[in-house]
């Protein structure tokens, strides 16, 4: 096949591109420039898309022996990912920008462009697997559970999965680093990137405060009694315990957790852990990675964080909403996160959490 390999400048995408070549594909390396004003250097594990990263990607392409280009996706990334991240937080929800990036950029803008240019698909260094089965090409977890990225790929449609190639899903990360060294890729020991790439400082709260302001608001208990104040409700996450700065102890002395964020009144509601218990999740705007779920109650697993646990559940889909009943209660679940449904290791689909109880 003729494919585009998305190369971030990291070790995973470099090995993915090299493996695609080894499998006999005709590969062209593309580095996505996602910031119109990139930093020169990468500081440790934080951030990506620096000038240094684009250089590393180019050198990896040289070593692999494939053509290399840079595609400017800064505008698309800003609109589809960064602005979405800000507006979701402003609305009191907790978004996952990596998932949005896969949905709007890597497997939309890039894949569409690649297909229009006559390519068959896009190769990335994601840890996930695809498989041909009776229901078509399906998306599965990687064998390295600690690196599995199927969660952030759960927004891919059947058509997008068709054009996606994940050469790393059957290998553990340590072996990828070894392979990179054997292939002469000097990014073999480059640190993994963590956190959110467009917040290079790693200080999400500070980054959001710069963009959304830091209007002081109350921290209240469930009866509405003010216990303290905060500087920007959006910097809190449901289930958060630390950093509340409350001086008034609870009646029974037990710790308090963030239960609710009310962006309109700029209020953070806190309470006991039990109040966080969620037994039911409703999701909207579902994307199916294979056949859509039906109104029939089905056994499966749900995951609500990128590296969270898969929880036993019963799910069904009707009237555009995904209903998930959990086998055991879950604590600290924010709306805006993605609920990803698995059938064993196969990704069934995902939906954005809009309601919990």
């Amino acid at each position, binding site marked *: 096949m003729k494919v585009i390999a998305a190369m971030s400048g990291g070790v995973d995408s470099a090995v993915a591109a090299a493996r695609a070549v080894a499998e006999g594909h005709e590969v062209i390396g593309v580095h996505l420039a996602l910031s119109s004003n990139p930093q020169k250097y990468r500081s440790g594990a934080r951030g990506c898309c620096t000038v240094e990263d684009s250089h590393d990607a180019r050198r990896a392409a040289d070593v692999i022996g494939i*053509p290399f*280009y840079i595609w*400017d996706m800064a505008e698309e990334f800003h609109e589809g990912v960064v602005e979405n991240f800000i507006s979701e937080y402003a609305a009191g929800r907790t978004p996952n920008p990596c998932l949005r990036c896969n949905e709007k950029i890597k497997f939309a803008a890039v894949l569409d462009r690649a297909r*229009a240019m006559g390519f068959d698909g896009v190769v990335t260094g994601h840890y996930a697997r695809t498989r041909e089965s009776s229901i078509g090409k399906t998306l599965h977890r990687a064998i390295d559970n600690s690196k599995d990225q199927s969660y952030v790929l759960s927004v891919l449609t059947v058509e997008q999965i068709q054009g996606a190639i994940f050469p790393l899903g059957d290998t553990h990360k340590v072996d990828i680093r070894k392979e990179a060294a054997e292939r002469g890729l000097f990014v073999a020991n480059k640190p993994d990137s963590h956190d959110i790439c467009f917040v290079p400082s790693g200080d999400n709260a500070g980054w959001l405060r710069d963009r959304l302001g830091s209007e002081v608001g109350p921290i209240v208990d469930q009866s509405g009694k003010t216990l303290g104040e905060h500087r920007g409700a959006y910097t809190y996450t449901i289930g958060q315990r630390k950093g509340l700065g409350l001086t008034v102890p609870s009646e029974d002395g037990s710790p308090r957790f963030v239960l609710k964020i009310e962006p309109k009144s700029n209020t953070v509601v806190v309470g006991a852990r039990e109040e966080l218990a969620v037994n039911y999740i409703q999701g909207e705007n579902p994307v199916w990675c294979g056949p859509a779920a039906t109104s029939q109650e089905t056994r499966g697993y749900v995951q609500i964080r990128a590296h969270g646990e898969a929880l036993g559940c019963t799910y069904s889909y009707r009237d555009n909403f995904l209903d998930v009943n959990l086998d055991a209660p879950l604590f600290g679940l924010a709306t805006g996160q993605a609920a990803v449904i698995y059938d064993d290791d196969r990704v069934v689909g995902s939906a954005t959490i809009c309601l919990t109880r």
Partner: protein
Amino acid sequence: MVAAAKRALADQMDKLGNPSSLHMYGRATRKDVEESREAIARAVACRPSEVIFTGSGTEANNTALKGLHWLRANEKRNLVVISEIEHHAIFDPAQWLADYEKAEVIKLPVLASGEIDLAFLRKLVVERGNEITVISVMHSNNETGTIQPVAEIVKIANGAQIPVHCDAVQSFGKIPLSFKDLGVTALTISAHKIGGPMGIGALILQHGLEIPALIHGGGQEREIRSGTLNTPSIAAFAAAASNAASAQAERANFVSKLRELFIAGAKAAIPDLIINGSGEQLPGIINLTFPGTESDTLLLLFDAAGVACSTGSACSAGVHEPSHVLMAMGHSQVSAQSSLRFSLSYLNSESDVAEVIALFPSVISRARAANL
């Protein structure tokens, strides 16, 4: 590299001796340097002593613009005049003079044809001629191939006794170029555009004119440029210059015909394309706008088909930026980003042109589909 340049380079590699040394080996390489200087002087119609070897065209431009400015700048005279379509090798030193030497910089606008607006310059010289330290306008534009009215510019500048520098990197060896006839104060040329090695250029600077240096040291080149002379590259530069001069007219004639063929074929294949730059043109440069495309997509598709073409310039991260030259000619950012430059040389043939034109329909339609 052309064969003569390769030979000259290889010959020098067997030689011993720094041309600044006084012993017999030094004298031998010095002789080669001076013969090279004379060959280049013949190719560009200047005196040998007017040739200052530099490490690149960029260095020659920096030396000329900064040196000529420093030579005359004072409290009242502090204005640097360049054009909107200069190469970054003039744009950026001018910006540096603004940032670090508090110079005022005015960029001459261009007409839709891509030629400098002479009326603007005339008015500027009448109104503020006594404030101008230097005027620098390129001989022909590297992106559109439009030849600039340098002789006219010199006439205007001479009236107010303003030195003129001309970046002739793109013209040298391709069209007749005479330092003497142009009457400019300084002229930049480079080897890599004429089949010589990369990393060697020259500043042609009027005899007897001493300007402050950028690089200080052994004073090898008229005290204006220090550093051990790069004899192998200098010898190869001279060989390439002689080669270019030997058949310049026939080659220009041949390449012009290829250009006409290319443009006619391109127009027939893509009727709505726009040809950028009119008036007098270099024979080997064709700049086209393909509405509804993005030039980096075009470049990838042509590259994959074995055709090397070029977008404007890229930023430090490698992202293609809209050409400031096309923007100065009145293009919008979108149409500037839909443009591509093709270069032809005398080593190309009619069948090369036909091969490229045959790719146009499929490449352009794919690029249009990919422009989501």
